[in-house]
C-alpha cells in the first residue's frame, strides 16, 4: 500500500511520531482479516459486552447509545465516554471498537490513546467536519469507514481506512438500504472486472476514486480491504443474506439488544454468519428467537438518512 506517500501533520506536529511508530497497513488490514466470518455487535455497557462475547461475537463496538436510541432521542451524538470504553475493554478479551465523529481527529486520537482495537469513523454520530474525513494514515490504530458505493469505499481506503462497511441505514432494523449498498459495491466491481483496461481511467473519474485503487480492485476482483455489512441487520436471515451477497462479515447494531431475547438472538446471528450458505442450519437457528426489534419503514421521507451524511 502506498500509504508512505501520504503524511500530513495536524496541529503543527501534534502527531510527530507518526513515521516512527506507524503500524504497517498490512497489520491494520490483518486484524480485519481475523474478524472475517464474524459478527461485530454494538454494546452500551460491560454486561452487554459479556453477553456478546458469550454469544460468539468476534468484536464489540462500545457505544453510549445504540443507533435506534440516537434516532429516537435526537440531539448531537458524540464519541463514547472513554471510561465506559475502558470498562468494556476490561470485561472482554475480544477486540473492542469505538466510534468517532466524521472528521473529528481528536476523538480518534483519544480513542487511540486508550487503546481501542479499531476506530469506526461513523456517520451514525453527528458529523464534525462536513468536508473532510480524518486522515487515517496518521494513526497507528486501524479505522473502519462506511460507504454506499465503490467510489466512496475507495476514497475512504485512500484516506487510510483498513476496513470498509457498507452503510445501510443504522438503527432502523430495515435491511433494504444495506442490500442496496452491498449490491451497489458488488455490482460496480463486477462491471469493473469485465472492463477493458483502457476504460478504467474514465471509470475512476466517474466514481471519483483514485485510479491506482480502482485498478487494484479490478485485479483483485474485490475491495482491497475486508468488507463488512452494516445498518439494518436484525435477524439471522438478514445476516446470512449479507454474507451470500459477498460480504466478509456483519455489524449488528440495535438488532441484538433491542430485541426480546438478546443472548439468544446474538448467538443465532453468529451461527447464521458461519453457516450462511446452509439453509437447514439457518432454519434451525432462526426458530423461536422471540421478538425482533421494531423496524422503521424507510419509504417515509421524514426518516433521516444517516447514510447521506458523508460522501
Amino acid at each position, binding site marked *: *500500500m*502506498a500509504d508512505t506517500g501520504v503524511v500530513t501533520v495536524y496541529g503543527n506536529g501534534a502527531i510527530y511520531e507518526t513515521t516512527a511508530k506507524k*503500524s*504497517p*497497513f*498490512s*497489520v491494520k*488490514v*490483518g*486484524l480485519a*482479516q*481475523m*474478524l*472475517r*466470518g*464474524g459478527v461485530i455487535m454494538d454494546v452500551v455497557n460491560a454486561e452487554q459486552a*459479556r453477553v456478546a*462475547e*458469550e*454469544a*460468539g*461475537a*468476534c*468484536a464489540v463496538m462500545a457505544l453510549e447509545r445504540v443507533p435506534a436510541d440516537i434516532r429516537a432521542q435526537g440531539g448531537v451524538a458524540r464519541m463514547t465516554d472513554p471510561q465506559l470504553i475502558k470498562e468494556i*475493554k476490561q*470485561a*472482554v*478479551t*475480544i*477486540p473492542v471498537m469505538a466510534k468517532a465523529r466524521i472528521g473529528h481527529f481528536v476523538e480518534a486520537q483519544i480513542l*487511540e490513546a486508550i*487503546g*481501542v*482495537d*479499531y476506530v469506526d469513523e461513523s456517520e451514525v454520530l453527528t458529523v464534525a467536519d462536513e468536508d473532510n474525513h480524518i486522515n487515517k494514515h496518521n494513526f*497507528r*490504530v*486501524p479505522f473502519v469507514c462506511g460507504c454506499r458505493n465503490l467510489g466512496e469505499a475507495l476514497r475512504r481506503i485512500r484516506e487510510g481506512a483498513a476496513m470498509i462497511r457498507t452503510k445501510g441505514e443504522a438503527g432502523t432494523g430495515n435491511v433494504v438500504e444495506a442490500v442496496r449498498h452491498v449490491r451497489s459495491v458488488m455490482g460496480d466491481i463486477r462491471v469493473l472486472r469485465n472492463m477493458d483496461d483502457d476504460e478504467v481511467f474514465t471509470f475512476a473519474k466517474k466514481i471519483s476514486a483514485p485510479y491506482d485503487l480502482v485498478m*487494484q480492485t479490478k485485479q*483483485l476482483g*474485490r475491495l*482491497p480491504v475486508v468488507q463488512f455489512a452494516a445498518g439494518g441487520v436484525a435477524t439471522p436471515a438478514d445476516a446470512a443474506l449479507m454474507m451470500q451477497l459477498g460480504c466478509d462479515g456483519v455489524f449488528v447494531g440495535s438488532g441484538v439488544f433491542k430485541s426480546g431475547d438478546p443472548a439468544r438472538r446474538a*448467538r443465532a446471528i*453468529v*451461527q447464521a454468519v*458461519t*453457516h450462511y450458505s*446452509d439453509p437447514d442450519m439457518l432454519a434451525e437457528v432462526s426458530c423461536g428467537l422471540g421478538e425482533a426489534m421494531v423496524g422503521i419503514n424507510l419509504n417515509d421521507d421524514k426518516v433521516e438518512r444517516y447514510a447521506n451524511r458523508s460522501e
Partner: protein
Amino acid sequence: MAVVGVLALQGSFNEHIAVLRRLGVKGVEIKKPEQLDNVASLIIPGGESTTMAKLAQYHNLFPALREFVKMGKPVWGTCAGLIFLANKATGQKIGGQELIGGLDCTVHRNFFGSQIQSFETELSVPELASKEGGPETFRGVFIRAPAILEVGPEVQVLADYTVPTNKVLDSNSAVEMREEKNWSEEKVIVAVRQGNLLATAFHPELTADSRWHSYFLKMASNVLEEASSSIVAVGGVDLSLNKQPKNDLPIFQ
C-alpha cells in the same frame, strides 16, 4: 489425499485456502464434525479464539477435533489455532474457553496487547530455511497475537522473538515470564512443532511467502507415505521468492 481441511468457523480460513491453492493443493472448509472424516490433515486458522471456541462448542466439534489430534494426524494452528492446540492457555475470558489440547505448552492469549501493539517483524527461522530453502528470515505478522511461555521436553522450538524492552506488556504476563527458567525474560517462543502438531503465533497466511504451508504439507505427506505421490505440488514447490507482490497488501483470493 491431496486435500487439506481448514477449520472454517471464523477468521482467516479463506487466506489459508488461497495459499494452499497457490501450492496446487485443495483446501476444504470444515464446519461440522463429520467433515473431518474426509481429510488427513487440518489447519486451524487465525481469528478470534473465543469466537471460534464458541462456534466449535455449538456444533460439538471439540470431541472430533481431539480425536483427530489423538490419531496423530497433522494439525497446524496459526494464532488462534495455536491457542486451540495448547494444553494450557492463560489470559482467557471470564469463564475460560474450551481447548483441543495436545501440544505440551503454555500459551498466553493476546500476549502483546491490543491492536496498537500489533506488529510485523523479520523472524529468524533456521529450521524452516534448512528444510524449505529461501532466506533465513520469515516475515512474521503478529496481530493481537499469543505467545508461548513454556514448552514441554518433546516440543521443538522453531522460532522465537525477543520482545523489545520498550514494548508495553500487561503486568501479569511479565510475572509469568519471570517464572520461566530456560529463557531470558524478554524472549518468547512463537513457532513450535511436536510430532505432527505445528503451531505458529503469527500469520503466514497473510504473507506471500508460502514456506510454512509447504513445510506443513511435507509433514502431512510424510504421515501418508503411501499417498505422498498424490501431493505432487509439494515436492516441486517453486521457491523463487522474488515473486513478491508489488504492494504490501494481503493476498485475497
